[in-house]
């Protein structure tokens, strides 16, 4: 998945790019509408994140220009403006969603995911590890012929493990990816979700191991457990 981020504030852009990279998205950053046009001429993107106030023009003009050019790449508008005055208008211009500054990365990620899911319809995005089948778009895991649906946090946790099997993820890092920083949660909260995932993938060769004192990792046994 490749995103185009159009944002003139460098600090914000870099942190958005770094954060989305953690979730496995490649992000190209354009500082202005002009730079964005150059990027679009040379590559295709799965999603565009568009700030409204840009140095060389109004993001809304860019938005309607894209739509009139029949570029149907999903666009999420990042707006700093008042909710009441702007939001409905953005959708009228052809934005797929919007998010108000300052935003929670979790929410940005959730909105990106929702927009991509909506755009791709019933398409699936199946990954395999061992005998475990994981579809991140339909939010299901399949093991030994049994399909289980994943709730949102379980899905995100599964994605983290799938992004780098065998790697040990510290509890604190998992916590940051699953909970908003505004939530007041202890590291133990992560155990609940790990336990649920273990239940749903039970019966196959893949396991989520506790690495005492450090965190968790996903691993597979060469032969299924007896």
């Amino acid at each position, binding site marked *: 998945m490749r995103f185009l981020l159009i944002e003139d504030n460098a600090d914000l852009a870099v942190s958005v790019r770094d954060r989305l990279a953690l979730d496995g998205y490649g992000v190209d950053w354009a500082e202005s509408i002009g730079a964005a046009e150059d990027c679009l001429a040379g590559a295709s993107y799965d999603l565009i994140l568009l700030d409204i106030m840009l140095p060389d023009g109004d993001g809304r003009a860019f938005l309607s220009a894209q739509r009139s050019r029949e570029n149907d790449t999903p666009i999420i508008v990042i707006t*700093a403006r008042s909710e009441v005055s702007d939001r409905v208008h953005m959708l009228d211009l052809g934005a797929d969603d919007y998010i108000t500054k*300052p*935003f929670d990365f979790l929410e940005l990620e959730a909105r990106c995911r929702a927009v991509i899911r909506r755009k791709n319809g019933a398409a699936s995005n199946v990954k395999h590890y061992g005998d475990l089948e994981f579809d991140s778009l339909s939010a299901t895991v399949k093991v030994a012929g049994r399909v289980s649906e994943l709730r949102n946090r379980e899905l995100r946790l599964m994605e983290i493990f799938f992004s780098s099997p065998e790697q040990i993820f510290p509890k604190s890092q998992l916590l940051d990816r699953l909970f908003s920083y505004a*939530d007041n949660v202890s590291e133990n909260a992560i155990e609940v979700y790990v336990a649920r995932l273990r239940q749903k993938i039970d019966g196959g060769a893949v396991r989520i191991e506790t690495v005492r004192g450090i965190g968790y990792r996903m691993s597979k046994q060469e032969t299924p457990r007896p």
Partner: protein
Amino acid sequence: MNAPLKPSASLRQRLRLQLLGLIAILSLLLYFSVRTIAGGAAETTQDNILSASATSIIEALHAEQDDILLDIPYAALSMLGANSEERVFYRIMTKASTITGYDDLPAPETFPAPEQPVFYNSEYRGSAVRIVAMTRVITVRDTPTEVLALVAQTRLGQDAITARIANTAAALGVGFFLIAGILGALTVESALRPIVNIAQAVQRRGPHDLRPMLKPAPLELAPLLASLNSFMERLRTALLRTEDFIAEAAHRVRTPLATVRAQTEIALRRAKTPEDREALRAVIRAVDESARSAGQLLDHASVTLRADKMERGDVDLSALVKDLVHGLAPTAEIRDIRIILHPAEGEFTTIGDPVLLMGALRNILDNAIKYSPDESEISVVLSAEEELCCITICDSGRGLNDAEQKTLTRRFGRGSNVADVVGSGLGLTIVSEVVAAHGGSFRLTPNKERGTCAKVCLPRK
């Protein structure tokens, strides 16, 4: 909205009445002057003939010894008999006795001076008559004797002429009244047309169209129109400036906050000690709180601004609620909260400003998500109740106590049990203001088991 002003009086009515009164007076004047002048002229004609007749009679008088002799010339009476209906009387008399003619024909008390005939009206033998009295002095036996000749003619012809003249004068008067009345009414219309045009143009544009009026105005109305235009221009500038200010303020406040938040999140990922992490979390919560407060303050300003110039149109509430749930579902999903939109049958159309209504309902649903525990459900129900459509949003959050339900809708009022959740307390104020501006009601009630139900009812179209 102000109640329409009660007009003091109709300008058109006043002009019409005044013109009509004026025309009526003129018509009456016309009638009477035509009657008087023409009647006078007819009378003068009769008097001239009478006078000529009397003269020829009196000229024929002559004295012979002691007597006064008279040969009445034929022409003297025939000139009066032109109209066969008309009767003619005469009387020749001295102060002592009647010489000839009708001796009871009324004579003036004193004889008029010679050469100065006197005319008068009288009643004689059942008819109105016009009489001329003319004196001549004849010398009889060296004594000058005054002889009076009276010639009378019935006034039938005269009366007929007068009646005809009166009819004509009345017809003239009525005709004048009608023509002048119609012309007057047309004049009133054409004089009022510029005023009516401007009034209609102002009415057509409604209270939200603040473009200047460019219609040509008559000189007298030009100052009024100029003031109206400059007032509208000032209002437009003020509204635009407020809108710009709100947008600019939001941008200036939120963009740096977004950067602070993003940087803090990155720092948090690198933080090693639990103390550092806790401190950075506190920074993020503070950023969220100030962003939310700023956002809601600005939203509140926008709501007030929009409610003032409220753009009313048909709003399909079921589509609006669907969009709303759709928009907030990703936020809820982060915490595994499900928003369940119960399907509703029928039409749910209200009249109002969709942006305001969306803002209000978003605030309620936003609150519901904020105060709901992880992995819970929020239900959204659309229902029709008589003339109302109601939207009920129930969560299973921490709920509120009775006293709080009132204070919550006040500015900055917050529940007593939510100190650990970011919030400014403006959200529900926005809701109640928007709902009130739409003539609806907003109530908070406890949910069955736990949590709160927020119910918004709006008048159905």
